């Protein structure tokens, strides 16, 4: 039995409001939203358009100091800016965007509560639970478990091919595979 039955219906149904773009608080909801809005091409999730569809988020790609991938900060009440280091590779930028998007979905209250000088949550080697949660969310969003397992099967675990399909780095891909308990076939 499905949570959302596949109804064999032709009669138009009164439209219900879509899940709000700022209430995608699980990776499953992000994926469903992206499917409905055609933001997944093959298996690659269009993180840039996902951010741009959110009226409360502004995306800025610009050079950032060395060692900084991205940031998120509140620019006005309930409006946030995500900045991404444009000097980085495409795959690294995609992960950075997903990471900051995760902060927005998971930690809005924490972002607001931070002092002026600490509003920016840099992705760095520093490990705290907010960073860990954002990384997990980003990985699960860019490489959904069901899609991931299926693609590993199709490609027989070819890391380069899998990384290209999901639009992530080989390192991010291997890390995700490890977290899902996948072994062998190159992953």
């Amino acid at each position, binding site marked *: *039995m*499905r*949570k*959302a*039955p*596949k*109804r*064999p*219906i*032709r*009669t138009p*149904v*009164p439209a*219900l*409001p*879509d*899940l*709000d773009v*700022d*209430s995608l*608080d*699980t990776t499953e*909801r992000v994926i*469903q939203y992206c499917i409905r809005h055609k933001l997944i091409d093959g298996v690659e999730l269009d993180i840039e358009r996902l951010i741009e569809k959110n009226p409360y988020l502004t995306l800025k790609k610009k050079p950032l100091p060395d060692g900084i991938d991205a940031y998120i900060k509140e620019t006005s009440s309930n409006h946030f800016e995500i900045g991404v280091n444009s000097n980085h590779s495409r795959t690294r930028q995609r992960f950075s965007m997903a990471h900051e998007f995760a902060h927005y*979905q*998971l930690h*809005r*209250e924490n972002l607001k509560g931070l002092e002026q000088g600490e509003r920016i949550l840099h992705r760095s080697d520093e490990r*705290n*639970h907010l960073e*860990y*949660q954002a990384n*997990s969310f980003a990985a699960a969003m860019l490489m959904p478990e069901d899609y991931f397992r299926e693609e590993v099967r199709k490609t027989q675990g070819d890391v380069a091919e899998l990384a290209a399909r999901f639009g992530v780095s080989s390192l991010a891909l291997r890390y995700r595979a490890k977290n899902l308990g996948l072994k062998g076939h190159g992953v």
Partner: protein
Amino acid sequence: MENYFLLFKTADAEKRAWRNLVAQRRSAITPIVELSRGKKKRNAGKDADGKPLTAEQLLSTFGVYGFERNWQTSLELLGDCEWFFLDLTREPSLSCAEIEQISGSNNGYEKWTSFVLDRRDEGISVRPTLIVNPAEEDDETSYVADLRSQFNTFASNFSEIAYRVAISEDDEFLFDLISLKGEIDSFQGSGGRFFVILDHEYVRPGNGLVHSKRTKQVISSIYSELKQVEIVVLATSFPKSVTDIGDEEHSIFRVEEMFLYEEVKKTHAKIKYGDYGSINPVRNDEVIITQGWRPRIDFVSRHNGLNTYYFREKRKVVGTTEVVVKGERKTKNILAPYSTHYRSVATKVTSFSPFYQAIRSSWGEDEIVAAAGGSVGSNSPSHWISVRMEIHISQVLKHFGCDPI
């Protein structure tokens, strides 16, 4: 009483919580029982060569799980209730071949209606939940005919019927209610009560406000079609893993299902409250813990609104020992016993002022007090889930001012 609808998933931890909840509190709740597959039978789930079946094969093989035993023990436990709704799990990881068979749509959901009627005939106070599970070959006409047939069978046998929808995922559900409009109106006209349960499943603490905006609109759409239905706003905010919400050792987070309900109620005053008893919707009972676990105790507090907090500890190394692994001598850490840590976290829980509160006649709170005093009831995580659930239910009843104790 109908102030509190509890989605009762049928895992052992939930059954233990229910058994230990005092009878007056049990009778103050209206459960929605979600039957799930039960435990895997010993040595089941393998093919003729002893190779484990795939997840897909498991779902289509009968006799792998103890489904029958699970529903029997679950329903026996609910004898104190005036009545409760019976439903089947919609969570694929908790389903089994028997559930897939019972939920078939053919002949007006014949197997499901028979199952519910059989339970009623055994003297159990069940009320039905409508199942919506079209087969691949169904067309619109047969789909609607099966749904209506199911409704009519239940309408002629029961005075209460429920319809549960996964509100975040199912955006076509109004079609079902509109298709049944004539039947529902007629049922209500003759004194029947129809409940629409809006199941939000997991709502992250802090996100109730954004979910409530949509829920209010969805409820308005339902009322525009069916004015007299009774709507239950159901959700849970307990995460799959506490580190999804907080840090490794301690955190406090809002019982978001209550916040969501109270937000929606500002617009739709007649709605009813429902939750999962502080249980996450997804249960993974096949995870084998090989590395041990970090002892944790949770507490639901009514201080400054309903909040859940937890204390958790990594087990301490108290010494080392020499072991031989594959002929090689290695040094292995000796960890402190679980009971030492449960005692320690129980002490932290009871010392967390002003959030910690004594609760009269609460088994869960008694367990925490006893553990803090050195008498740890159990070192099993499942036991402490039961403790959390029993406390959560007691505190929700108190929050509503309808605790019978």
